[in-house]
Structures are given as C-alpha cells and as structure tokens.
C-alpha cells in the first residue's frame, strides 16, 4: 500500500435508523478503501440490509452520513453512478431475456458500448448460453449470475452484494463466488458484502464487521478476529458474538 492514504470509496459515519422507539441501525461508522472487500455479518434482524439500503439511498437515515467517493447519495443521485447492487431478494423482469434486461440496465447506467460489455460479462460469468433465455426460465444459480452481471455492467467503483448466494446450493454458491472474485480482481472493484455464510465471508473478505442489534460489535481481519475471540473460524466468532452479551 502506498504511504499516501487514498480517500475511502465508501465512508459511513454515525449511521442510525429508528422507526419510532425501535432502533434498527445504531451509530454505525466504517469505511471501505479502494480495492478492499468488506463483509458485514450478523444474525437475522441485525440491521445489515437496512445499512445497505441506506447506502443506496433507498432508506433515509435518522442520523449520520453516507459518502460514496465523497458524494452523498441521499442528496446527489449521481453518486449511485459508481455503485452496482444485487441482492437475493430482488429479481429482474421475468419475461425479458437476460440480454434484454442487461441492455435496459446498461442504458440506466449510461454504458455506451453495451453490446460488447454484455457479451464480455456473460462470457466471463459463463452464462453466454443463457443470454437469450427469458429470465423466468433460469435456475436460482443462473439467475444469481444474471443479477451479478447486471451489477457489474458499469464496472462500478463500489459493488454492494446483499446475501448474493443465499438461495444457492453449496456448489452453485461456490461457482458464483469464484466468478465474482475473478471479475472483482480483474476490474479492481471495491466490495461490501452481507452474508450469513461464514465460508463466503472468510473466502472473499479482507475485513469483517459484525453487527448485532444494529451496532458494530466487532471488526477486523479474520486473523484479528480469531485472535480476539480465541476462535479458529468466523463461525465460532459469529456464535460467540451472537450468543454472549458479555464478550462485547
């Protein structure tokens, strides 16, 4: 790493979301540097998806700020030109083919050489044979790769993946991870991933944030977390954090 610190691709400060008396995300602060892959881990309802949605401008924070390359997506939608997103709970229009869906989103992001970029992406994600198939005819694994292709169209500076392989069997999930990792490395992308899959986070992330009850309760590289919690893997760290109030 160079001695001069580059400004972070993503800077989140004091991010908080309250619905009445319920605090879903509580004073979350972190940053993601260029080229880094950061994982957000936490039990169901911990606030992972709400955090992602606040970064995307889909949910307005009660307090705190989000900066994507210095721009606030809540007041400057142009900030989202640099962001790719996919999640297990979204879907592409089912009657359109994969290629048609990708053409639509290529226009949305302003990709001028859409046909070449789409052909290239589907080849690298090994779904060329599916490109002209209606999305409704895809298996979960194939649909996930189509969604990933959508999120990569503009080669975004920041890639947000919300439980990207949650609906996949271990084999399909592993294939998806390998393809994503390869393209992310080739294009030098920065990633923020949420997941319940410890193996996925161990394999893909340089750094992990643990969120519980809306707060970051631990963070660090896998080695730092293993040392702090005397654990041999992230699953052990996860269980310790999820089940034991005292460790924090």
């Amino acid at each position: 790493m160079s001695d001069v610190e580059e400004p972070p691709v993503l800077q989140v400060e004091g991010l908080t979301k309250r619905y009445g008396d319920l605090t879903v995300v509580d004073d979350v602060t972190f940053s993601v540097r260029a080229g880094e892959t950061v994982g957000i881990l936490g039990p169901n309802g911990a606030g992972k998806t709400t955090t992602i949605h606040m970064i995307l401008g889909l949910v307005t924070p009660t307090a705190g700020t989000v900066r994507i390359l210095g721009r606030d997506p809540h007041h400057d939608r142009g900030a989202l030109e640099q962001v790719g997103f996919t999640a297990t709970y979204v879907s592409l229009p089912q009657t359109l083919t994969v290629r048609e869906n990708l053409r639509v989103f290529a226009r949305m992001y302003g990709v001028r050489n859409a046909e070449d970029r789409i052909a290239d992406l589907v080849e690298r994600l090994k779904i060329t044979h599916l490109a002209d198939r209606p999305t409704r005819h895809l298996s979960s694994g194939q649909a996930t790769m189509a969604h990933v292709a959508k999120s990569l169209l503009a080669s975004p500076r920041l890639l947000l993946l919300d439980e990207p392989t949650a609906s996949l069997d271990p084999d399909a999930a592993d294939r998806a991870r390998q393809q994503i990792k390869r393209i992310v490395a080739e294009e030098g992308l920065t990633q923020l991933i949420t997941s319940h899959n410890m193996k996925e986070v161990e394999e893909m992330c340089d750094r992990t944030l643990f969120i519980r009850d809306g707060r970051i309760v631990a963070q660090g590289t896998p080695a730092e977390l293993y040392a702090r919690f005397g654990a041999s893997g992230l699953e052990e760290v996860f269980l310790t954090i999820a089940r034991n109030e005292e460790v924090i």
Partner: protein
Amino acid sequence: MAGGAGVRPDVRPSSWGRISAVMLRQMYLYKRTLHRWLEAVYWPVLDITLWGLLSTYIADTDPSSRIGFGLLGALISWDILFRAQQSVSVGFLEDMWSRNVLNVWSTPIRAWEYVGGTVLVGIVRVTLGAVIAIAIAGFAFGFNFVVEVGLPLIPCLLALLLMGWAVGVATTAAILRLGQGAEELAWALGFLFQPFSAVFYPVDVLPSWMRGIAFFVPASHVFEGMRAILLGDAGLPVRELAWAFAIDLLYIAGAAWVFSWSLRQVRERGLLSRFGE
C-alpha cells in the same frame, strides 16, 4: 474481445439514457407479452363497436340528431385520457410485480426521469389505441372524428393527456405509499373522475354540488368544448381550453408534489424495501 480484464465499459450517464432505459424495458414487455398488445387494442375496439352501434341506433331513431356522434367522440377522447393515466401507473406496477423496484431505484435514476419514461411509452400506447378507435369509427360507423372536430382536436387531446398523466402520477404515488394492496387504484382512480368530467352529458345535468367539483376537473371543460363542436358549429373553445390547461397545470404541480412526498415518506419509513419482498 473478452479475455484478461475484458471489455471496459464506456460509461457516460445521462438523463435521456435513463429515460430511454425505462422506455426500452416497457417496449420489451410489449414485445414479449401478447396480452399487453391485446389489452391496448382489445378495449378500444370493443368500446367503439358497442358505442358505434348505439350511435347508429340513435341516428336511426332521430336522423337529425348528432348525439350519437357526440357519444362516439366522447368515448374516443375519454379512452385517450384513461390510457394516458394507466400507462404511467401500470408502468410502475410492472416493476412492482416483477420485484424490480429496488433494482431500478438503486440506480442513479431520478423520479422525473422514471415518470418521463412511462409517459413517453404511454404516448405510443395511447396513439395506437386512438388510431384504431378513430379508424373503426370512420370505416364502420361513418364518423370521421378528426374531420368533425378539426384543428381544435389537437389542444383538446393535449389537455386530456396532461390530465391523464397527472392522475397517473398521483395514482403511482398512492401505490408507492400504500403498497401492492392499493394496485386497484391504477384502474379505479381514473374512473372516479368520469362522473365529473361530463364525458357523455353536459355539465348542466349534474346536481349543483357535482357541478362545483366538475369545474375543477380539466376534462369537463374539454368535453364541454368538444361537445359544442360536435353538436353544432362552434369553433375553437378558447375559454374552455384556457380553463382546462390552467387546471391541468395545477394537477401536474399537485401530482409532482404528491409523488415527491410519497417517495420521501417511503424512504423515511423504509417502505421501499417491501417492494423487494
């Protein structure tokens, strides 16, 4: 082509690019789903056939009466307003039904670009339905709508389109705020305006409280003006059109405010996320 780092995208975002993306998505839907074409064509054909036969019956009963033509012209015009409203609200419903809302709203698209895309697709859809209805009225029932109304038809239809789009945007705002359970509004809200729009009868026949409301419905002024042309020899209904356009502007401003308020509300309450469930 591919290999190594692959093809780098040439990214130059623009408002027009995002508007055309919304249009392209709708065009693909039409290309891929026959029933959408049928829907765009079926109702105008059915309506104009039914009302054409009624106007023929009226003309047979009283050859001097032009009421039948008045009804046919009103029907064609109402259909244009209704289709314009639907094109906006159903465009949003399509994204909701396909769980695509979060995909769309996580891009840099602005609200006005999204609405603009649905409006432009609506123009194609409305034009198709109107051309078919006007052709059937002309060939099957001897009613040449374009010739009968003449040049005033252009501002009259524009005033109706503006009202349709404004109501469509307000309908979308309501669905956005209330969720999928409110999707019936896409069909119902337009018709709520029909009794006050004086489509098939003059404003004078309305009870006084309804006349008060009708005054604030742009379509009532348009239909009054158009009826005067079709039933008599009146020319361009300047006064009626001035009222219609003035109230249209209020509707558009109101719809834009309601849409923006709804979007702010769903973002503050985290309700946009439910469209991914």
